[in-house]
């Protein structure tokens, strides 16, 4: 293997404002104050994180005979996120967005059933006798949210690293923590000494940590609350 020349680029982290991005809560709050355009952006943000988890929930639930999962989730977003007060109500409460959305989605599905019944009358199929008691599907939803949050935090941290000229820091971090490469292998791959390697990896890791906590934080949540939520998400994935 060819050893790359030792990296002499500065390992300076970016400015503090870049290190601590807006939380999901403050991001949505700020967007909602920005009129219709902001509302659309907030909706886009919510959809980017929760489309897949809601689809997963739908497919594992007794609602699944209602139609195509993606169509229903899309219908749900179109109906609820376009309402003036939907996300504002979440902002006013002290609840994680995932619980807010799954509850709203179930309500939406029941509304959808009533609508279908009105149209079809007694032609509603037997399979459409539904219950919202689908613990396994709900577990899958929360599991999918947990993985999605990790993925989004990684995307945010990577973006921040690249914007700050720390792209290699991020690559070192990913190669070690995601790809499982040892220090020794990476020292050879990147041409870094151990000290520099650890500094780069920690710098990128700090960015990931800040992004993750910001995504998880909700209104009124303390640092301890965020820790508890992280532990909950870990348990959900492992269950």
């Amino acid at each position, binding site marked *: 293997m060819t050893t790359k020349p030792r990296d002499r680029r500065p390992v300076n982290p970016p400015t*503090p404002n870049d*290190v601590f991005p807006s939380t999901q809560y403050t991001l949505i709050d700020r967007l909602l104050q920005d009129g219709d355009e902001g509302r659309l952006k907030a909706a886009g943000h919510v959809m980017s994180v929760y489309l897949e988890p809601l689809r997963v929930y739908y497919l594992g639930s007794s609602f699944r005979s209602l139609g195509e999962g993606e169509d229903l989730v899309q219908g749900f977003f179109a109906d609820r996120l376009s309402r003036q007060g939907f996300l504002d109500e979440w902002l006013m409460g002290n609840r994680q967005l995932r619980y807010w959305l799954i509850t709203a989605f179930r309500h939406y599905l029941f509304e959808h059933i009533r609508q279908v019944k009105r149209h079809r009358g007694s032609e509603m199929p037997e399979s459409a006798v539904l219950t919202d008691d689908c613990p396994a599907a709900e577990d899958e939803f929360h599991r999918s949210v947990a993985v999605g949050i990790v993925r989004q935090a990684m995307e945010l941290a990577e973006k921040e690293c690249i914007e700050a000229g720390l792209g290699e820091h991020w690559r070192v971090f990913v190669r070690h923590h995601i790809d499982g490469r040892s220090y020794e292998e990476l020292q050879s791959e990147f041409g870094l000494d151990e000290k520099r390697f650890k500094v780069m990896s920690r710098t990128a890791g700090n960015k990931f940590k800040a992004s993750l906590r910001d995504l998880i934080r909700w209104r009124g949540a303390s640092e301890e609350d965020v820790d508890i939520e*992280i532990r909950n998400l870990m348990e959900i994935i492992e269950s």
Partner: protein
Amino acid sequence: MTSPYSSGSFPTPQPHLQKQTAVTMLSMGLVGKHRPLDDLIDRLSRPDGQVWLQTLLRRQDRTLPMSMQSLLDGTASLDQLKRTKDISKSLIADAETREMALGALAVYCLSVAAALVHHGQLISSQSREEWDTLFVDLSAVMPVPWRDLLMQAALQQ
């Protein structure tokens, strides 16, 4: 503008992330044991953090055995840095306000960093590994040129 509710705007499915990897990544987000330095990092992260630091450092210039600039340019002797560190340590314990204690902690860390960078000496009983971690974490919220000093200290062999 295209509505985000239209099907075309839904995100592309993301590549699979192994469950165990996701758990490991989540565990990295835990705060862990609280360090005094975390209070300083929180203070510096506030919107007025940089102004607060500059005001604090100007005030330190009047009370310390050498100027704060000498920590950067290497003109502070090792003895001066040790005395600065000791004065700061006392101030942390005796400070009248939390803000003053945090300010003293900042100077304490910077004097240890300067001793490493300019004299190659660790003037603290805490391990080098612990200091390297502290330097990296603190550098994330420090303005230039203090950020550079801290990163140089973390990389010092």
